Structure formats: C-alpha cells, structure tokens
C-alpha cells in the first residue's frame, strides 16, 4: 500500500520568502507523525498544502497516493482537518455543527455524529451554542469535525495551542485513542512534550527545512543521552574539567554552570561527585532531568523553541 503521505522537494515561496524550502517527508499508514518547529518554520504552510488549501510552488506532494491537482474531490472526502484556531458558526449548537459538516460527506457521516459526541466528551454540550464553549471544548469539536467523514488521514494543526493544561491533557488522550485505533494522524506543534508524547515519528523543521527526523527516542539520543544534569559549582569549572568522567557523554557551559548529557544517572552521578571532590569544588546546585526534544532543538539550532 502506498504511504499516507509523500513529499519530495516541496517548495512554497511568497515573493522572496521561502516558507517551505525543499522539504522531503513520508508518513506511513497508521502512524502518528509530528511536524515540530517554532512559529514561522513552515509547518502550517506544509500542512495546508497537504490539505489541498494551498498550492506548492514546486515539488511533489501525494496524499494517499493521489495528487491534489488531479483528484481534489476524492481527496477531500478521504481526509479530515482541524485548522489552527478556526472559528465556527457562533450561534449553531455543537450537534447542529456536526450534522452540518456530516451533510458534506456520504450517508455514513450522519450516523457518526452521536458516536463522536460521546467520544469527544461533548454529549453534555450537544445543545450549546458554539460561542458558549470553552477553548478545550471548541478544540474537541474541531477534532470531531475532522473525524466526521471517517478520514483515512487526520491533520491537526497546533491542536492544543492556547489551551489550559487540563484541556491539553484531555485532548492528548483523545489523540492517543485515535492512534491506538490505527488512524493516520499528522500533527503540527511547537510544544516538545506534545510531540514526544503523541508521535511515532517526528520531523523537526526550521526555516522551511527539515533539520531532523526520527522517533522521539532517536532524536533525544542524538544529543548524546537521555538525561541532562545541570550543575553549578563554587568556584566555577570549565567544561573540560569534567572530560573523561564515566558516563558523561558531553559537557557544555550554560549560563554560570554546566550542562552534561548522560545515559545512566546512577553511573554518572557518583563519578561526577567524585571528580568534584578530587578538584575540591563544591556543587551549589545540581538538577538531573530527562532530556526533551527542546534540548534537541537547542542542540541542532542553537535557539530555543520557545523563542517565538
């Protein structure tokens, strides 16, 4: 079976600006694929091209083995979409909105309305006007609308942006349930924790280009370890002072302290403390944490994802 999505050499220019600058990607069926990057990285442009809402300047784009130029009608019936912050009909109820969207698909779609209301925890709100929904409920409705045509591929553009932590987690549960059911999901996000938790594979994009691709674990491994130790000492130490400590794969200066990439804290920490004692240096602060994709992005670009 052809991959769900195939992109080769995708370029989208707006005048002199290349929003997407030669992107290659493939998404397999049943996969939850994440496009991760800061605002303005070209994620939304890429996804809108995949959704048939924007036209590429050049490059090859296939969705479900078809191209938008040739079979737009068929593709629209087979994909589902939740755009970034769409505002729907204010004075339509949740159920009416779902029914309206269902009417655009085949007869089967109307049957799904009741199921989706339950799955997206919107049953209590079925008769509420859309304008009276909370941000989280609105996003769940947006996902439900994406699913009403029983799509083979679901696109979610920044699904949790602007949501409170509780609503984010509720939406993550929903997306995980879709993934378990084998639905192909393509999501964009600028939240590392979101990509890490939800995605089978992730492409990190920056300035219209793919700068890394792999599973969350592979990407984290690329920065040299699954854990990070941040340490401040008195007096301060240069990174070289910790060279050769057992279990420390990399050390670099961060602020007035050091950041160390390590694989196994239980091996590295005793060795590290021993080295400090040997040098007669006192640790004033020591934090050990799991490395995140944010650290990957920082390592790859020298910039933090949050600098948007």
């Amino acid at each position: 079976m052809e991959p769900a999505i195939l992109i080769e050499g995708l370029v989208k220019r707006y005048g002199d600006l290349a929003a997407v600058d030669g992107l290659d990607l493939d998404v397999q069926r049943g996969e939850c694929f994440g496009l991760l990057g800061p605002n303005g990285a070209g994620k939304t442009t890429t996804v809108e091209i995949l959704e048939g809402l924007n036209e590429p300047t050049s490059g090859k784009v296939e969705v479900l083995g078809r191209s938008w130029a040739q079979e737009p009608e068929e593709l629209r019936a087979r994909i589902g979409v939740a755009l970034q912050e769409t505002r729907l009909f204010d004075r339509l109820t949740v159920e009416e909105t779902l029914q309206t969207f269902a009417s655009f698909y085949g007869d089967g779609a109307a049957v799904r309305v009741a199921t989706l209301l339950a799955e997206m925890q919107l049953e209590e709100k079925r008769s509420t006007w859309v304008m009276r929904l909370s941000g989280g409920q609105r996003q769940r409705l947006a996902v439900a609308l994406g699913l009403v045509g029983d799509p083979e591929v679901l696109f979610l553009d920044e699904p949790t942006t602007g949501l409170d932590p509780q609503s984010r987690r509720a939406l993550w549960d929903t997306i995980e349930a879709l993934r378990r059911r084998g639905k192909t999901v393509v999501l964009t996000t600028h939240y590392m924790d979101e990509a890490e938790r939800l995605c089978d594979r992730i492409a990190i994009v920056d300035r219209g280009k793919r700068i890394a691709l792999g599973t969350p674990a592979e990407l984290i491994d690329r920065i040299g370890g699954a854990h990070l130790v941040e340490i401040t000492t008195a007096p301060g130490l240069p990174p070289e002072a910790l060279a050769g400590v057992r279990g420390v794969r990399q050390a670099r200066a961060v602020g007035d302290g050091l950041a160390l990439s390590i694989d196994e804290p239980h091996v590295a920490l005793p060795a590290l403390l021993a080295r400090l004692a040997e040098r007669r240096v006192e640790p004033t602060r020591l934090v050990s944490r799991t490395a995140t994709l944010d650290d990957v992005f920082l390592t790859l670009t020298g910039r933090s994802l949050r600098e948007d």
Partner: protein
Amino acid sequence: MSTTPKATHGLWALSAVRLKLFFREPGSMFWTFGFPLLVTVALGVAFRNQGQAKSPVAVVAGPGAERVRAALAGRPALSARVVDAAEATRELRTGEAALSIEAGRPGAAAPLVFRYDPSRPEALATRRLADDVLQEQAGRRDVVVARDETTVTRGGRYVDWLVPGLLGLQLLNGAMWGAAFNIVNARQRKLLKRLAATPMRRAHYLLSYRVSGLVFVPLQVLVLFLFARVTFGVVIQGSALAVLGLALLGSWAFAGLGLLCASRAQNSETANGLINLITLPMMVFSGVFFSSSRFPAVLQPAIRLLPLSAFNEALRHVANDGASIFTQGVPVAILAGWALVTSVLAVRLFRWS
C-alpha cells in the same frame, strides 16, 4: 435495525444553517424587519398630508403690516405672522418662512416688497398666491372665472411612494450586510477555509444564501406592506404576486452585488468600505427617499441603470400605479442583467481563504 439518520443534502443543510443563524441573531432581525418599519413610521408621520399644506409667510412689522396679515389670513394655504425685520430675514434664511412681505414703507417706490429664495420650490408659489390675495384686496378683478377641484389620488401620497423604495433599500441592505459582510466575516475567521477542506460542493455554500433568501424576502415583503397598510393605509394597487416576484428578482441582483463585494475582501474593514461605496450612492441616486428625477437630465440614463433605481421604478409602477409587471420590461431586464453578470463574476473571483 432502527432507522439510521440520513445525510441531508449539503445545500439544504447549509440553507437551514443560514435560517437558524439569522433568527438567532437579534441584530439581523432588527435591521431586517424592525428598522424599515421605524423608518416608515418616522417618514410617514413627518411627511403626512395634513389636510392642506400651509406655506408660512413672515410679514415685516410696519405701518401696513397688520392689513397684509389680515388679508392673507383669509387663505387656508397661507399662514402669516407679523415679525420684525431681523426675524423675517432669519426665517427666510432658515426656511421657516417661504416668503417675507414688507408693506407700506413710507416714501418707497413700490408699496409692496416680496422677498424669497427662488431656488426653494414652494417660495414662488407662495409669492404668487400672496400677490393674488393682495392685488384682489386692492381691487383687481379676474377676467376668467375658475373653480378649483382637489383630490388626493390613490397611491399618490408620499408614504405610498416611500414604502416601495424602503423595500428596495431593505433588500439591498440585507444582501450587503446580511450576506456579503457575513461571508467576509467567515473568511476572516477561517471558516471558509475550513469548509473548503470538506467535500462540500462549493457552489452550495453561495447558493445557500439564495435559498434562504426565498424565505426571508417574502417575509420582508409581507411584514413591510402589512405594516404600511395597517398604519398608513398603504395599498398595493397592482398584483401582489408581481410585487413578490420583483422582490425576489431584485434580491438576486443585490445578492450578486453582495457576493461580488465579498468575493475577495480579506477583512471586515475592507468589506465595510466596499459595501458603503455601493450602497450609499444608490441610497442617494436611486430614489429611495426623494425622486431621482431631481437630478440633472444628463445623469438620468446612468441612474436608471443602477439596480436599485430599476427595482424602485418597476415596483412603484406596480405597487403605486397598478401597472402590470409585463409593462416593466426595461427595469426587469436591467435587474436580470445585474443578477446574472454579478453572480458570474463573483463566482469567478471568489476566494476561499
């Protein structure tokens, strides 16, 4: 197995959405139904026929003033008051008096002076009438005896003339603010883009505004004419069916203009400007509140081509003069032309994002 819900055809579903949204929005209800009724009442009362119209005359205080006033008081068409010279000048300037008369100034060459602004339509008539009264009093005798017979013709009052124009304006505003503004708003909030990502037939979205119009337009016609009949006794002289048909055709022409406005505008500010650019000139030129025949002859052919002028012309002939719709070929053709050309252009130019 129990009955499964069936997908409604997209066009009907979208049209139902239009109707629901309309009736759930208090603002649109007021502007579509309430506002035209308020205008009808306000203008109908302001310009009602108060028996006979009286022209105000200011008589400048002086030796002959009281004699002039008394003479003019005998005529129901005139209402004369004695005021001082400064007040008379002021009233003439503001239009409170159509004419001022100064009589019997000692040593003057003419014992009577009429002052008026000839560009005011009623000034000249008032001057002639006052002159007649004063000349007759001084002894002039008419050579031919004439008798006046006055009637108020059916459908000939201002309010009779106003109501069809208000319906036109209402339909135009409905198409502009109800449809065009609404579409631009949907584009701005990315709802159009979201809809374009579904298999919805795109023409259905635009058509849904017309299908819902089949409900709104007859309602608007019914409410306005029923109200005008109850309050002012305005009667449709021609065929009510022809009025309804014209209203539907007019609403198509206006909706086409609305769609054209909405086809590209990216935000409500642009839409606002475009809509005003189209509706304001028509409010002035197309004879909604006053007859467009007041504009110079050289402008008339252009004015007649405006969709609202064509609509008002045809509707007034049918509603006020009782003409058959089949005598209104020219305005009907103009409306149909606007409906066709604007719709085709709008669909060509329409952007979903």
